[in-house]
């Protein structure tokens, strides 16, 4: 039955090629435009750590003075050294890591590569197990090495390829800022997008190449980049960041159960109250505890242009669909005579309805194929853009399936009204008129 409908549909579509082409083109344009922007949005707003992100939280407290204080003021995005170290050492969560980022000069020892600047993350031992960072060789450092300001480093797979040809470099020397570090681990495939734990060096495609203990980086006065937000009049002297009134550290904790989240929140509130009572915090307790996705949402990580384009293309799809409904209506109604004959010969209304929907489904499939090609072209155009996220704009299997599903569903939807109108014809009237 279906194959008969299919051949009828092809036959009918061939009869009026211009109209068919117009409908397929309209669907293809609408699908192509909306799938391009939806794919970009899908890539940009994806979960950087599926399965883990729900239990990772970003604590915020408010240590500032009363300048600009008001109700509903959000606490600063980062922590000061004093608070960060306290929360880290309190170990109230199952895992916690404190971090910041900077550029360090790297002097290769075993190759003829010139010295270059590379991006480094200064963090603490739990960073690796907490985020489930994969290792190719070796492992992260431990808490004792944090404590001892050990000269140890973990390097990315790409840096390992560049310096050591991809071999096992654990135990080898890495010279950073004229100091010798021992490599303890080489990362595997670690490219979380968005770069959720550290958004100051770019939200996408901004992986760092070197990881060293935070304590070591402070000991060696390694350069701190990113944002330093200060209050009061202590200034923001880069070499004395431990003592100034500035927030410049990011802190992540792992909280596995909802009860732990509540407990941690009240811990933050109590800490703020204590600091407020001691006079260090001028503001009353003002804390936030967001998980990864809430944090990304709060930070507006997805560029607003990408969201605007998605809105626009969805509107575009609506116009294309309305257009297709109109064209199908005219096409189906024009075939009243043919449908009247089929009805008179015994075809049920249901059968006619099925036949017409099959026709619109075929248009949808053709439109979907065209739309997929247009979306590929669109994504290629996006990748030519200068934005940092551009290189990530690739279609994956789920978006590919979504394209076809959307195209067929949209065209079936567009076909329902015209098909229903067309199969309500009274056969006798049609036959008589002819």
């Amino acid at each position, binding site marked *: 039955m279906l194959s008969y409908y299919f051949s009828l549909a092809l036959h009918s579509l061939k009869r009026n090629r211009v*109209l068919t082409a*117009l409908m397929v083109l*309209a669907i293809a*344009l609408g699908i192509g*435009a909306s799938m391009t922007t939806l794919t970009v949005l899908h890539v940009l707003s994806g979960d950087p750590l599926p399965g883990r992100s729900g239990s990772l939280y970003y604590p915020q407290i408010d240590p500032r003075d009363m*300048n*600009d204080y008001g109700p509903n003021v959000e606490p600063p995005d980062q922590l000061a050294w004093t608070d960060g170290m306290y929360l880290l050492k309190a170990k109230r969560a199952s895992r916690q890591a404190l971090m910041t980022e900077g550029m360090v000069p790297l002097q290769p020892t075993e190759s003829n590569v010139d*010295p270059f600047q590379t991006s480094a993350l200064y963090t603490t031992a739990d960073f690796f197990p907490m985020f489930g960072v994969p290792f190719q060789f070796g492992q992260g450092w431990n808490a004792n090495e944090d404590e001892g300001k050990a000269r140890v480093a973990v390097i990315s797979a790409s840096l390992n390829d560049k310096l050591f040809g991809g071999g096992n470099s654990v135990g080898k020397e890495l010279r950073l800022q004229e100091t010798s570090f021992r490599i303890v681990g080489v990362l595997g495939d670690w490219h979380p997008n968005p770069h959720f734990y550290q958004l100051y060096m770019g939200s996408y495609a901004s992986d760092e190449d070197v990881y060293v203990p935070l304590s070591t980086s402070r000991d060696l006065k390694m350069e701190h980049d990113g944002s330093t937000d200060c*209050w009061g*009049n202590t*200034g*923001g*002297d*880069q*070499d004395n960041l431990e003592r100034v009134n500035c927030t410049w550290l990011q802190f992540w904790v792992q909280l596995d159960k909802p009860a732990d989240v509540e407990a941690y929140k009240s811990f933050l509130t109590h800490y703020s109250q204590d600091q407020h009572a001691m006079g260090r915090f001028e503001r009353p307790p003002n804390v936030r505890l967001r998980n990864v996705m809430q944090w990304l949402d709060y930070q507006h990580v997805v560029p*607003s*242009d990408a*969201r*605007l*384009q998605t*809105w*626009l*293309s969805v*509107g*575009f799809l*609506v*116009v*294309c669909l*309305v*257009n297709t*409904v*109109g*064209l199908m*209506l*005219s*096409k189906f*109604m*024009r075939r009243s005579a043919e449908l009247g004959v089929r009805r008179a010969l015994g075809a049920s209304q249901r059968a006619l309805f099925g036949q017409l929907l099959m026709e619109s489904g075929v248009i949808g499939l053709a439109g979907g194929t065209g739309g997929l090609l247009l979306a590929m072209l669109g994504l290629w155009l996006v990748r030519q*853009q*200068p*934005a940092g996220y551009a290189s990530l704009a690739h279609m994956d299997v789920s978006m590919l399936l979504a394209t076809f599903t959307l195209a067929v569903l949209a065209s079936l939807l567009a076909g329902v*009204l015209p098909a229903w*109108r067309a199969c309500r014809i009274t056969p006798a009237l049609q036959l008589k008129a*002819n």
Partner: protein
Amino acid sequence: MNLHPMIAALRKHKAGVVLIALQIAVTLAIVCNAIFIIYARIENVRRPTGLVESDVFLVTQQWVGAPSGDDPASIQKLDAMLREDLNALRALPDVESVAPTNSVPLLPSSWNGSAALKPGTDLRSGNARTTFYFGDEQWLKTLGLHLVAGRDFTAADVTNMGFRANTQPDIVIVTKALADKLFPEANAVGKVIYLNGDSKPTTIIGEVERLQVPSVGSWASSFVWNSTIQPIRLNGNFSRYVVRAKPGRLEAAMRAVPSALYTVSPMRVLDDDSVKSFKDIRAEAYRADIGMAALMGAVCLILLAVTAAGIVGLTSFWVGQRHRQIGVRRALGARKIDILRYFQLENLMIAGIGAVVGVALAVGLNRLLMSKFEMQSMPVYYVLVGLAVVMTLGQIAVFVPARRASNVPPVVATRSV
């Protein structure tokens, strides 16, 4: 012409009428807003920075093995290296003038802070956010800025300081926008302000007409004309020089820079991006805006084309359906022009209904976008222009099928099919 029979006829095609009207409405809403976005982006791109931009280029370089400490000896060594570079560049035959700088407008690298009327206050009422430029006595001249009050820096005003130092200058030149914000009533020249919440007073000695901040991001849009220029050479392990070439000698001057700097000292890094014309800096800064405007433009055109195709399709269908009726009308004395007018008027009515709904949709969409994105309220004339565009489009699209209708011969009335 009597509208009554037309409305009666349209009643028989409710679905088609609603579809065309709806399509026109949504198209109008999207096109108005898209054009408004395009216009806003283009306005953004076209605003002048305050510079005379032709013949200006920027040199960014990094020293290798330069002192990295913040002690006075290191700073003086770095300053000596900087001055050597300046002298070498100033000696080039195609160069008009050179100044050290930390950034230029449209460059994604900025030093930002605040200017206040009272000491020790940061970013509060009566204060203004500002960007800081650091240059010497040739900085204004090199960028081609227009001094509207007070005086320029002299060589004696210019000092130097380490890149990470946090001391405020004795004197500054500010933009007129910032001066007017700080001293709305009075002349700002000679007045004292406090920078970055410091307690050290700083005197304004001059006002420039216009100077944009480096960042073009929306976070800087609240202080885009608030710039402060400090008479200071910043010393770090990298340096930037802004250069004005002699008129028409831009390329020659740019080519001469790397070898001149390598002659002073080969211990430095100059890469492909190190010598960059202001034209390129501008193009890079606004590439995303121009891309967005182009995308919006393309979407508008395709949308209008799709809508026109829809109108052609549906009207053709109606013409086909009413073939006999048209023949009857012709046989009863209607002229070709009457038939043509009939379909044109019919389209005008449908498009009119669609456009009215579309105006409401357009305003609603604008409100929605305003709430979700940083967008202004759309002026009424955008909606009016959009309305005119879709009505015209409807008339153009309907012309072909309507002409075909008018060519139906009266004899059709006498045939049975």
